[in-house]
């Protein structure tokens, strides 16, 4: 019995080594592990597009000059199935098998952190978006990982600022519902109660639920019975859709409804139809922003994929550009030098000016978006606005 198995073992090992890709000496290899399947596959597909576009543009322009020689950039993407174990394993393989010089991040704190911890240990630079800054900073003091995204306190206060600034009148009773994921706990559990008090609201309910919860009837019932006219929700898209539907089916319509995270992608409005109207969501990017290439990026995405664009194409595109610029500035594939060049990043990208602070974070400004007729409209601040606030929620 031992002999046949040896043959089999040898065959398997041979097959495995066959798969080893030969890195060309004249290529700069970078890699990313993305959620292309599983619950977050939606985000992953936007990020994949953003990363690829940035790399393609650099290659079309002749590549990056390293040590005085122009070299093409090769981007290797792996699927992590929305599983942090897989993100970590993919990142390890990218470093040890594909010999990447630097990497781009996955999406959401759980996945980004899993890959980032591997990069940190292996001393390879990793630039990411899609990981809110407080959640990112809470893990550790980073040396090799850089995050370009919004900061939770900004996002958490934007809607109440907008409502106060635009003069929408309510009974000042507020209900806060949030999931117990890392960013949900920061936003809903810590920041919102304080911000609400600052703006003079009475917090009548603060409810927490698991990220993948599906039934919200008792939470909704309680808010209804306590007559909250302002509801702030922090939940991912499937739950956001469920909450909005179940609110309607419980006959509860607050005057102001803000659903962070989950209400952001177009699929939210597609799944809900008219029910999406009036829902507020904080955003860090819109094609109308006055940054170079913003409008073109959304147009390019829509014409290439025939899908509606998302702000996730922008932070991923920008993260990849920041990394590629870093490699170019370093003029080398030495991780140490690339990391040093990343620290000096100071330039305006499609998401706005990017400059990292001592925590390795670059903060994106946040605006208030509202769904109106299947499209988002920037309703606040006034300098960026593309439409008027729909109030109260129909």
């Amino acid at each position, binding site marked *: 019995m031992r002999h046949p198995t040896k043959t089999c073992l040898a065959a398997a090992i041979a097959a495995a080594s066959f798969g080893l890709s030969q890195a060309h000496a004249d290529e700069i290899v970078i890699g990313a592990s993305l959620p*292309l*399947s*599983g*619950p*977050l*596959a*939606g985000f*992953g*597909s936007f990020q994949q597009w953003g990363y690829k576009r940035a790399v393609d543009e650099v290659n079309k322009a002749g590549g990056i000059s390293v040590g005085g020689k122009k070299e093409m950039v090769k981007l290797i993407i792996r699927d992590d199935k*929305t599983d942090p174990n897989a993100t970590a394993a993919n990142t390890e393989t990218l470093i040890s098998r594909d010999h990447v010089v630097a990497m781009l991040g996955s999406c959401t704190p759980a996945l980004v952190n899993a890959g980032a911890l591997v990069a940190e240990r292996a001393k390879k630079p990793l630039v990411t978006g899609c990981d809110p800054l407080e959640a990112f900073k809470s893990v550790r003091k980073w040396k090799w990982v850089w995050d370009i995204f919004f900061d939770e306190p900004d996002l958490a206060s934007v809607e109440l600022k907008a409502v106060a600034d635009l003069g929408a009148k309510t009974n000042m009773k507020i209900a806060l519902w949030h999931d*117990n994921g890392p960013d949900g706990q920061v936003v809903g559990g810590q920041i919102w109660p304080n911000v609400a008090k600052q703006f003079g609201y009475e917090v009548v309910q603060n*409810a*927490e*639920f*698991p990220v*993948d*919860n*599906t*039934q*919200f*009837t*008792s*939470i909704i*019932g*309680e808010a*209804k*019975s306590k007559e909250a006219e302002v509801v702030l929700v922090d939940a991912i*898209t*499937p739950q956001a*859709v*469920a909450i909005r*539907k*179940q609110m*309607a*089916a*419980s*006959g509860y319509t607050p005057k102001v409804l803000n659903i962070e995270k989950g209400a952001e*992608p177009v*699929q*939210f409005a*597609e*799944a*809900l*139809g008219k*029910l999406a109207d009036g829902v507020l969501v904080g955003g860090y990017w819109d094609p109308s922003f006055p940054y170079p290439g913003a409008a073109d990026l959304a147009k390019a995405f829509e014409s290439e994929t025939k*899908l509606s664009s998302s702000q996730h194409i922008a932070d991923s595109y920008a993260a990849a550009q920041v990394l590629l610029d870093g490699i170019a500035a370093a003029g080398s594939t030495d991780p140490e030098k690339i990391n040093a060049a990343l620290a000096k990043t100071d330039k305006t990208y499609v998401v706005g000016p990017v400059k990292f602070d001592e925590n390795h974070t670059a903060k994106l400004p946040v605006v208030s978006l509202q769904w109106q007729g299947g499209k988002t409209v920037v309703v606040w601040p006034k300098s960026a606005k593309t439409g008027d606030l729909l109030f109260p929620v129909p």
Partner: protein
Amino acid sequence: MPDIGVALSTIASGVLLGGILALTALGLSIVLGVMRLVNLAHGEFLVLGAYAGLFFLQFTGVDPLLGLPVIALLLAAFAIPLYRWLLQPLADRGPEAQMMTMFAVSIILQNLFVLAFSADTRSIARDYAALPLTLGPITVPLIYLIGFAISVIAILIVNWVVSSTAFGRDLRASAADAEAAATMGVDVKSVRMLTFALGVACAGMGGALIGAAFQFGPSSGGAYLLNSLAVVVLGGLGNVLGTLAGGLVLGALQSLGGLTLGDGYRDLVGMALFLAVLAFRPDGFLARGRP
């Protein structure tokens, strides 16, 4: 302490929701009972039914709840080749082989859903799915009541098929003792194939209902599989009316758990109950003793 109206509404919604859960679990129960197969692709068949409902509405304009029989037939037609080519050859090979095959089917389907329909969260947008129904202090979602009614009707029909038709007699005989049934002239192979088709058709109907009442996406199946398993175990394997009872009990207790401990504890309560019943009444809480 929650307000009395909130409490009553939550429990009422829970019971009605339990009815819907019963329909989603029915297919799993039948397949388990007759084929001794934990159908790990059950959740994906639900999701497939939900997509079928969504596109049925888009292409024909007919309400997916009216089109449930058509969706059931489509899913059954999908199930038959699956059984013939994948499961039947493994019939004599113990439960693991079939279970793993269905697991493979489930990951293939999930992958295909993403490729074909994107990873977006969907929902079958119907006006009646967003209307409240108010009776005195109690408010429940109208769609829960509609779903409950549909589930009960579907379950009664399936119960009639299983208990009163010739096919049902063969099915029960095969479930009790396949070898004995075969010697008595029952074509066990065909019975199993049709049972599988029936199970998948039930899953499809349950999925279309979920699509209208809630939301779904390519990877929603897993959560429904676990919930369905809990219902099946509560009601007893292969026991059609038991499944309905199991659904109602699970729905009511989950909503009680949600009410007292917070919505986050719903599933936790469900799983704890599930294990307790498994441990103390493995044939379902309705069973009077081991057969």
